[in-house]
């Protein structure tokens, strides 16, 4: 009888609907000692509203998504998917820059990073998931792309 009651209680509490919630913060980090500007291109033209600037040794919040559910929610690369950008450039204040192609783009720049490259900015797989807080029913994440000294060295 005791066990029957226990099972019924467990079923009752399991039955409560999803009370999970999450918060995901998309962050751009710059661990180099250079000022960085990111420009997004469509058909060879810079799309100004999305231009990102970030100081050396700094980071910037690009997007916060907080909602019910278990996430992981809206993240920055997803939030620009509708612009159908061809490419972007990560430009350092010394004049060096790297070119990143979006998914499905085959360009003529032999130095450009294709979508499948492990440093391609458009590819969500190259962003790092960091769990900053994990409670029983609440998860908080950072979704981060860090521009590194190696990125600077690889830039042309």
């Amino acid at each position, binding site marked *: 009888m005791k066990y029957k009651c226990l099972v*019924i209680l467990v*079923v*009752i509490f*399991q*039955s*409560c*609907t*999803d*009370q*999970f*919630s999450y*918060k995901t913060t998309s962050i751009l980090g710059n661990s180099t000692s250079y000022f960085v500007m990111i420009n997004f291109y469509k058909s060879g033209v810079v799309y100004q*509203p*999305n231009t990102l600037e970030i100081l050396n040794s700094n980071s910037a919040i690009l*997007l*916060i*998504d*907080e*909602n*019910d*559910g*278990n*996430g*992981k*929610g*809206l*993240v920055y690369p*997803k*939030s*620009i*998917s*509708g*612009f*159908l950008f061809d490419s972007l450039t990560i430009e350092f204040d010394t004049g060096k820059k790297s070119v990143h192609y979006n998914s499905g783009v085959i360009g003529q720049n032999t130095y450009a990073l294709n979508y499948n490259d492990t440093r391609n900015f458009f590819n*969500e797989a190259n962003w790092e998931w960091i769990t900053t807080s994990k409670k029983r*029913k*609440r998860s908080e994440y950072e979704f981060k792309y860090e521009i590194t000294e190696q990125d600077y060295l690889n830039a042309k």
Partner: protein
Amino acid sequence: MPSKFTPSGRIIVNDTQVGNFPLAGAKVRTRRWFEVHEAITGLDGTFRASGTYRYDFNYEIVWERAQFDIRSGTFGQATMNGPNCKCSWNPTIQNGLQRFYASIFRGAHRYFFGNIDGLRRPMMVSKMKISAYDTNGESNGDNWGDWDNTGLTPDIRIWRFVNSRERGTDEIFSTTIHEIAHSTHIQLMNAGLIQFAQVSKVIVESWAVAVQWHLTSMEYRERGIFNYGAPNYFNGVDGFRVNFAYQYWDRTLNDRYTSVFIDMLDNFNQNGQIFIFRPTFAIQGVVNDPVSGYTISGIESGFLKHVYGLSSLRQLAKANRPGGVTDNQIDVLIDNY
């Protein structure tokens, strides 16, 4: 001896999307010592009590009806105090906590009494208790289920703020609908909670999202926003799942709160469509949705009670498909989830 006076007046409420309009169905209570008279506001927001007073009396709105009750937090009754006078009362609930209560009331009132397009109305064992929290919530709201027949614990909890932002009245309204939809879903299952516990989260939440989208859209279209909840509608809040008819959903966003039932109802294929939130934020839809023609009440009364997961949804959607929809199209849609 002073003359007799009948309490009367009109209640107007503000909405963040459509401005001011009359509040229908609200319970107004008047009191002087032990004499109490009540009235319910009509569609035009007016009320007139059944009794009279010779001297000053007190007005209040009691945020409840016989079927549901809004609490100020976990236990107290939510009320709005009016004047003590021998006069009419014509308040406008313009903002703040009372507008929050009013928005929950509007959602619950619609679900219990209004046009819900043939959906099942909630039938609670005990009066539905909706706890309204004037605080930041980690969640918009939740549903604890109608398992406590004493009515002591709340069935539903709803928060006014998220991340210190006061949520819009349409968001509060739609969260109320979402949570009540869970209650009716529980009642729909043969053995209530025990059966409901076996339904997968993707079905539980996606169904509530669809009801939330459908009824909130009905409400605001009736109030003059004719594209509310349409694939081209955005109320300015990123994570609000009624925006763009939730057609921007994909598997990476959330694997429980999906658009699957909305996609069975709508006649819009979002695959490749662009949803512009603002000049720096636009999402391309990826779900291939060739299905349309189901109705929300048809799904609920027809086969929802037998749906436990996506496989049974696929099977039952095929068994109950509307004219013009093929098994293959249903497979194409369900494969997205």
